[in-house]
């Protein structure tokens, strides 16, 4: 698979083909001084699919996302995003790759000196030459999508935790990236608010066909995202219900333990795993 992606990149093709992965981690390792945080991690992710990375604190989940986004460089191994090798790119070269990536950080990481509207439209206002009216329209659209249309002029400090995460999701999706990364998007939220965030993840995946990588240690959220699907009704309303078996298999779990992959498979395989560590984690 890696050779195929590399071959396509050499040919200068943009990967937009359903059978080829948009994300490839190939034997990636990283250590900070003596502390190894990722050991020989390999996985792939197909377009429109979801990868749910589980693990205890310090297992290397967030580091995986940061490597993918080019915020950290691996010590060994290769990383491919949308058909482009990113582990050896400079910061400036990486900017072009990031145009296809959106990330929702832990706690949201909203710019606290900007309003919700400015936060959501940040990339479009600052890094594109789109007319202001078009940017404003897109900002209203994504804020409407996450149900925060009337909050556009508020400051982040005036929002609740759940609202901040939804603004962060709106900011990540505003520039229509093909891949969205969620780093503990529901941590610290009450179950009901967390479910509203989960719904946004499911809606983006199924309605906007965004490829997703969800990092979490909240099992309830992980299984909810894997086992639910969103659909647009004839009247335009979006409904969320239980996913069919085929849809469920598009969400793959990856369990990390001390930087090593200890499980890879779908929700059903995870539930029925005989591994003692997994059983303890799931209990």
């Amino acid at each position: 698979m890696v050779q195929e992606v590399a071959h396509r990149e050499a040919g200068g093709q943009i990967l937009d083909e359903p059978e080829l992965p948009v994300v490839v981690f190939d034997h990636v390792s990283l250590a900070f001084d003596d502390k190894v945080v990722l050991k020989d991690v390999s996985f792939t992710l197909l377009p429109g699919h979801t990868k749910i990375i589980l693990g205890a604190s310090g297992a290397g989940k967030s580091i995986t996302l940061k490597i993918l986004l080019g915020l950290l460089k691996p010590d060994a191994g290769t990383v491919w995003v949308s058909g482009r090798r990113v582990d050896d790119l400079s910061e400036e070269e990486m900017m072009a790759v990031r145009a296809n990536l959106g990330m929702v950080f832990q706690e949201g990481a909203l710019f606290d000196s900007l309003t919700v509207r400015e936060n959501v439209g940040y990339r479009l206002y600052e890094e594109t030459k789109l007319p202001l009216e078009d940017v404003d329209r897109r900002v209203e659209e994504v804020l409407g999508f996450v149900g925060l249309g009337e909050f556009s002029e508020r400051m982040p400090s005036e929002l609740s935790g759940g609202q901040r995460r939804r603004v962060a999701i709106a900011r990540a999706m505003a520039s229509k990236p093909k891949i969205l990364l969620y780093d503990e998007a529901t941590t610290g939220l009450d179950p009901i608010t967390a479910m509203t965030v989960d719904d946004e993840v499911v809606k983006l995946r199924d309605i906007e066909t965004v490829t997703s990588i969800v990092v979490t240690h909240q099992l309830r959220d992980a299984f909810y995202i894997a086992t639910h699907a969103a659909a647009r009704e004839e009247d335009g309303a979006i409904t969320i219900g239980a996913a069919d078996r085929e849809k469920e298999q598009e969400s793959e779990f990856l369990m990390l333990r001390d930087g090593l992959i200890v499980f890879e498979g779908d929700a059903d395989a995870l539930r029925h795993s005989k591994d003692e560590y997994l059983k303890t984690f799931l209990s």
Partner: protein
Amino acid sequence: MIALIVGWLKTVALEVQLYARLLGATTRGIVTPPFYRHDIVEQFDAIGVASLTVVLLTGFFTGAVLALQAGLTLDTFGARPVVGRLVSTSMILELGPVLTALMLSGRIGSGIAAELGSMVVTDQINAMRALGTDPVRKLVVPRVLAGVFMAPVLTVVSDFLGIVGGWMVARFQLQVATGLYWSSIRRLYIQDLEMGLIKPFVLGFVIVTIACHVGLRTTGGTQGVGRSTTEAVVAGSVGVIAVDFFLTRILISLLY
């Protein structure tokens, strides 16, 4: 003991390397697009205009106390009428640039380190990079430009207010005639003015780049932000005094 010294030397070498890299990235950001004009204007206001009050007060009282002290000493030699020259030379050559820089180090150095440090520990810097913005171009370059160009303006204002402060003391306390005070100032050399104007460009650069470097290297949550703020002020102030010495040495050999 040796291990401690080696560890300390490694830390110093790393900091110097990272500071040099930041300077390189800042220089690239100044001469190549994209430019964030709105942020540049905002920083000129935040660093320049907002620092005016503290610089005005510092300059005025420094000039006044200088005249007061100098009056006593000059009386010993019967040279009270040259108090204007002493105040103006001291203010323009040394006290204006250095005290303005120290005030700026306390006011904007701490502010920059705290702001950037908070952005680092709350992942806002990473979010900015993820959204396609280079934090050096967006955050460091506007602050450096504002520091470099507003420090001389503030220094000139401080020099002037210091001389005015000195005049008030000379006129009303030391009973030196106004004409005598101002005419003694005219005897300044052009090289004095050049030195007084060149210094703040460099000192402004030193303060802001140190504060940005320290802020962007913040680790350890809110406690780390506090630590960075203190470090920025301490390192900035020591940097100002040290750079002032070496710069003065160079300028004396070049200008006089």
